[in-house]
């Protein structure tokens, strides 16, 4: 799982995680405040974050184990830069309510999932500019791409944070990466079809928060 547990990482990594996360939350909140009123966004962001949280509780069986979805790409596509604080809140709740991940690693885990969300947002936005086609398929493909890349990046970042432990952990990291390859595909398909659905049913939902609203 891409949620690293407590008790694995070293102090400098934990501290760096918290530092980056606090800085990024401050920046994203400040940014969206600048673009509009955060007061308007708090209720909306909260309700949407709940929905993502619940969707990510869905388990899909792969062979003998079951995986649960990560959805950070989708969070980015829908919430824009506010995806970062949303993921932070989601991970707090995961840790506190389900014992998933951990308390001390919150900072690192938020970086590992939140940065890919921001990247996915960037990819989706840039892709839309590049290919101005309004066709559902092109949007879905773009969504799938952003969703898949987000998971791949999350896995890479997670592997990166584990690499700090030393080269003795190489095998464990390789196993982690291997384990996530099917998840990348699954998420890409799901994010792509969610985007296709939203484009048809409620296009204004995409990028609806974080100051992108007119």
């Amino acid at each position, binding site marked *: 799982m891409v949620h690293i547990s407590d008790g694995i990482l070293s102090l400098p990594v934990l501290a760096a995680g918290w530092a980056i996360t606090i800085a990024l939350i401050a920046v994203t909140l400040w940014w969206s405040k600048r673009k509009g009123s955060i007061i308007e966004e708090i209720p909306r962001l909260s309700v949407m974050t709940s929905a993502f949280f619940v969707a990510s509780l869905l388990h899909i069986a792969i062979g003998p184990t079951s995986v649960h979805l990560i959805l950070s790409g989708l969070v980015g596509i829908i919430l824009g830069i506010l995806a970062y604080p949303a993921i932070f809140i989601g991970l707090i709740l995961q840790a506190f309510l389900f014992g998933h991940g951990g308390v001390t690693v919150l900072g690192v885990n938020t970086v590992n999932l939140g940065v890919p969300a921001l990247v996915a947002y960037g990819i989706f936005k840039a892709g839309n500019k590049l290919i101005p086609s309004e066709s559902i398929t092109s949007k879905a493909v773009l969504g799938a791409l952003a969703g898949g890349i987000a998971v791949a990046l999350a896995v890479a970042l997670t592997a990166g944070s584990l690499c700090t432990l030393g080269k003795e952990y190489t095998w464990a990291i390789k196993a982690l990466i291997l384990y996530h390859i099917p998840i990348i595909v699954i998420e890409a398909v799901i994010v792509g079809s969610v985007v*296709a*659905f939203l484009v*048809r*049913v*409620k296009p204004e939902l995409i990028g609806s928060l974080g100051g992108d609203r007119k």
Partner: protein
Amino acid sequence: MRDAITVRNLSYTYPDGTKALEEISLEVHEGERVAIIGPNGAGKTTFLLHLNGILHGTDGQVEVFGKSADKEKREDIIKDVGIVFQDPDDQLFMPTIFDDLAFGPINLGLPEEEVRERVEKALLTLGLSDYENRCPHHLSYGEKKKAALAAVMSMEPKILVLDEPTANLDPRSRAELIEIIKGLNEREGITIVTATHDVNAVPELADRVYVLNKRITAEGTAQKIFSDVELLKETDLEVPEVFKLFEVLQCFGYNCEELPLSIDDAIEHLTRTVENEGGHIHLHIHKHTHDEVKKLKSKYEHHKTNK
């Protein structure tokens, strides 16, 4: 007549410990229309979810046309029993009405040709033919309700289970939906099980009524149930307005055994009574009228006083 649904000693407890059903036993005959009434939280929805094997009783058993809903493969039961949920938004999640109607048949593994035929037929039955390519999310509430029913009808169930079919509908959509459901029963012989709070619709939608409040507390024709004062008080049930009003008329000396439940009933009833009583009915205030009326009022106001 063959039993469509047989339930024996069914109990169900939610994983969090909520006892929702206790020793339910009932049967629904083929082609019959049965209503299940009871207060909020009585377990109506929970019960309906047992009828196609979505939930499995912690105890007891459910049989559909003699096949156990627990053991057999669920697919068999799903083919026979279609459930229409209360909130149509829970049921319509595809980008177009067509996709939504095709969802069930595709899951049944039918060939594409037949899927299309069934979708067409369901659209026609519900009068939704023009809506095929519309997005269900953008329909009005009444249309969504019809689309949700269509999405179940495309699976061609023999038993139709409806959870609060009339809730939140405007009067026109409500009347339309009631007509459609009655038609499905009359024309296609589909067995109908309805859970509802809408007592005024019960006479139209059911031949027989079960009162549920965790257990089955009563069973019988709507007539019988609504005449049982003790039961009404215990279960906090409401009575159709027409029925209430005829009870009022009784206090004024109207003479009859069985009280009517709907306007149509009432017309027939009045006609018959007039004819039986030699051409006219006499209403007057007799010695006990006021007392009776008072008693009657208190009977229907138990809600208020129990508070």
